[in-house]
C-alpha cells in the first residue's frame, strides 16, 4: 500500500476482494453464500471481515437456501449480498424470480465460469443471457453491471446496492474468473449514498402500525395483471440508469462493442491499432441491463464496422442487433470459455481495416 503525496489511498487487491470492500463500504452487513470456484475469495473475505464489525456471515447448505436467506434478510430491510458462479446462480433463479415479484432489493454477484452444465472453471461470459434476460420464471428484469477492472468491482458493487434499493429489485454484478482473480490497485473512494436509508415496507413487527406483508402471490381478479404492469413501468424507469464508456470513439470507423474482460483486453488491442493509425474505438456497456441501445445505434450509424467481442459464441450480439438496423455492419469475434488475447483482437482489427479499405477504395 502506498500513500502518494496527493493523499489518494490505493489498495492492491483481487477483484473478488474489492467487491467485498465495496459492499462493506456501502453498508452491507449480511452476506450468505455457498462455496463454488472461482468466487470463493468473496465468502472467505466476508467470513473474516463481517463478524468483527457486527455483521453476519452464514454459509448455506445450497444456493437455493442462500437466495432465500437473502429474501428473508432483505424483507427485514437490511442490505444483503451473495456471490456465486454459473451453476449456483442457476439454483438461485427461483428465488430471484420471487424477489423480483416481491420487490425485494439485494445484490447478487456472478463470477462466471464456463458452462453449460458443470462446464469448467475457465472464465466465460456465457451467463450473459441468463443475467440480462433473467433466468427465473414469469418475466422480470434486474440491473446488471459489468465491471472491467478491480476499481469497478469496488465501485459498481456500491452502485448495485443503491440501484437495488432505489428500485426495490435484485441487482447483479456480472464478472468473470479473470476480473475476480485479477489483482491490481484501486482507489477505495468513499461511499456516498444516493438513496434514502428508510425502508417503510420492511417487516419488523407491526408495533404502532397495521400488519404488512411481502409477497408475490396475487389471486384476485386482475391483480396479477396490474402487478405486472406496475413492475413493467419500474423496468422502464430503470432504463434511465444506462451507463457505458466510450473509448477512443473520435472518428472511429471500427467500433468494438465488448464488456467486462473482453473490453479490458480490447483496450490494449485498440491502443496498438490506434498507434498504427487504425480508426478503431470501443463502446463498452457498463450496464448490460439497461443496455446502451441508443449509443450502440448511433455508433453503428457512423461506423463502417461494428465488432462485437465476447467470451461466448454470441449472446450480447443479439442485443447489439436489436439496437440497430445496421445489421450488415456487425461482425463477431467469440471465444467461448477463454480470454481473447490482445493479439487476436488486434489481428481482427487489422483484417477489418483492410476490408473497409477495399470497400471504400481508400488507402491505409
Amino acid at each position, binding site marked *: 500500500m502506498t500513500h502518494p503525496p496527493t493523499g489518494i489511498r490505493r489498495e492492491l487487491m483481487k477483484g473478488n476482494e474489492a467487491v467485498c470492500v465495496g459492499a462493506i463500504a456501502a453498508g452491507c452487513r*449480511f452476506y450468505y453464500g455457498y462455496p463454488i470456484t472461482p468466487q470463493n475469495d468473496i465468502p472467505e473475505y466476508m467470513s473474516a471481515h463481517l463478524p468483527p464489525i457486527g455483521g453476519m456471515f452464514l454459509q448455506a447448505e*445450497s444456493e437455493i437456501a442462500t437466495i*432465500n436467506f437473502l*429474501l*428473508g*434478510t432483505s424483507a427485514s430491510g437490511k442490505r444483503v449480498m451473495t456471490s456465486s458462479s454459473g451453476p449456483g446462480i442457476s439454483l438461485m433463479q427461483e428465488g430471484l424470480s*420471487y424477489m423480483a415479484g416481491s420487490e425485494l432489493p439485494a445484490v447478487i454477484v456472478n463470477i462466471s465460469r464456463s458452462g453449460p452444465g458443470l462446464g469448467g472453471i475457465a472464465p466465460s461470459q456465457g451467463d450473459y443471457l441468463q443475467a440480462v434476460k433473467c433466468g427465473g420464471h414469469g418475466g422480470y428484469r434486474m440491473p446488471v453491471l459489468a465491471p472491467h477492472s478491480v476499481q469497478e468491482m469496488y465501485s459498481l458493487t456500491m452502485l448495485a446496492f443503491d440501484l437495488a434499493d432505489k428500485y426495490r429489485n435484485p441487482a447483479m454484478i456480472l464478472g468473470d474468473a479473470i476480473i475476480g482473480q485479477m489483482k491490481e490497485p484501486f482507489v477505495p473512494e468513499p461511499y456516498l449514498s444516493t438513496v434514502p436509508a428508510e425502508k417503510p415496507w420492511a417487516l*419488523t413487527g407491526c*408495533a404502532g402500525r397495521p400488519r404488512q*406483508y411481502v409477497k408475490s402471490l396475487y389471486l384476485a381478479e386482475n391483480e396479477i395483471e396490474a402487478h405486472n404492469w406496475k413492475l413493467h413501468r419500474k423496468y422502464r424507469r430503470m432504463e434511465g440508469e444506462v451507463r457505458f464508456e466510450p473509448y477512443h470513439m473520435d472518428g472511429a470507423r471500427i467500433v468494438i462493442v465488448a464488456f467486462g474482460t473482453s473490453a479490458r483486453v480490447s483496450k490494449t488491442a485498440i491502443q496498438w491499432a490506434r498507434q498504427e493509425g487504425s480508426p478503431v474505438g470501443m463502446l463498452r456497456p457498463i450496464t448490460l441491463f439497461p443496455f446502451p441501445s441508443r449509443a450502440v445505434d448511433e455508433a453503428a450509424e457512423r461506423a463502417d464496422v461494428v465488432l462485437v467481442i465476447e467470451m461466448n459464441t454470441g449472446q450480447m450480439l443479439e442485443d447489439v442487433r436489436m439496437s440497430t438496423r445496421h445489421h450488415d455492419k456487425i461482425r463477431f469475434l467469440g471465444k467461448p470459455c477463454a480470454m481473447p488475447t490482445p493479439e487476436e483482437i488486434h489481428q481482427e482489427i487489422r483484417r477489418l481495416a483492410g476490408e473497409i479499405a477495399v470497400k471504400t477504395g481508400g488507402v491505409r
Partner: protein
Amino acid sequence: MKGETKGTFPRLVFKRPESLVDVRTHFCPGCHHGIAHRILAETIDHFHLRENTIGVACVGCSVFLYDYIDVDVVEAPHGRAPAVATGVKRAQPDRFVFTYQGDGDLAAIGTSEVIHAANRGENITVLFVNNTTYGMTGGQMAPTTMLGQKTATSPYGREFRNDGYPIRMAELVATLEGTAYSARVATSTPAQIRQAKEALKKAFGMQIREMGLSLVEFLSTCPTNWGMKPLDAQKRVLGEMSEYFPLGVYKERKQADFV
C-alpha cells in the same frame, strides 16, 4: 357483540384471539387449518408477541396466513420457509419468527431447508401441518401419504415398492443436535387441542429462550381431497394416522448448549 356480552355475562370467558383477523377463512369444512390458526393466534397472544412477530407463509393452502394472522408476514417460495425465516431471524434476532408449512412444502420440496435450519439450531418455530396430501393442488400424493392411500397421483393406492414409505418428520427432526423441541400433536378432540396448545407454548418458549429450532407437527385432515365427510376424516386421524404417526414429544431440550 362485545358491548352486549358485557351486560349479559358477569365475566368474559371466550373471545377471538387478538392476533386472529376477524374474517371468514377460505378453508374447506372439516379442515384443521382453522384450528391450528387459532392455536397459533392464542399462543402469540399468550406471549404478547403480536407486534414483535414475523411469520413466514409457505406455498399451499396455508399461504394465506397473512390474511388471517394479524402479524407481519413474508411469503416464501415452495419449501423454502425455514431458509427465509433464517434470513429474517439473522437480521432481527430480537423478533419472534415462525413458519407455517404443509407436508408437501416441508416434507417434500423443503426437506433440505428444514433439516439444515434445525441442524444449525436456528432460533425459529416451525408449525408443520400434515394432512397426508397436497391440498391446494387437488389432492396429489405427498411423502406423508399413507400406504394404500388413494390420491390424485396414486390412484391405485400408495405402494412402497414404487413410492416408498410415509415420512415421519417429527422423529427425523428430533435426531438433529440443533433441534430444541419436536413434537407431534393432533386437533381432532378438545383434549388434543388443549395438548396441541401446550406443545406450541413449549415450542414458542424454546425460541424465546434461544434454545434452537422448535417444530410442532399437527396431524390434520383434508376431507375434500380424502373424499370423506368431516367426521370420518376425524376418525381417520384418530385411527390409522395416529397409529403410523404417533403423537408425542420427540425432543425437548432442557438447557441451551451455550449455557
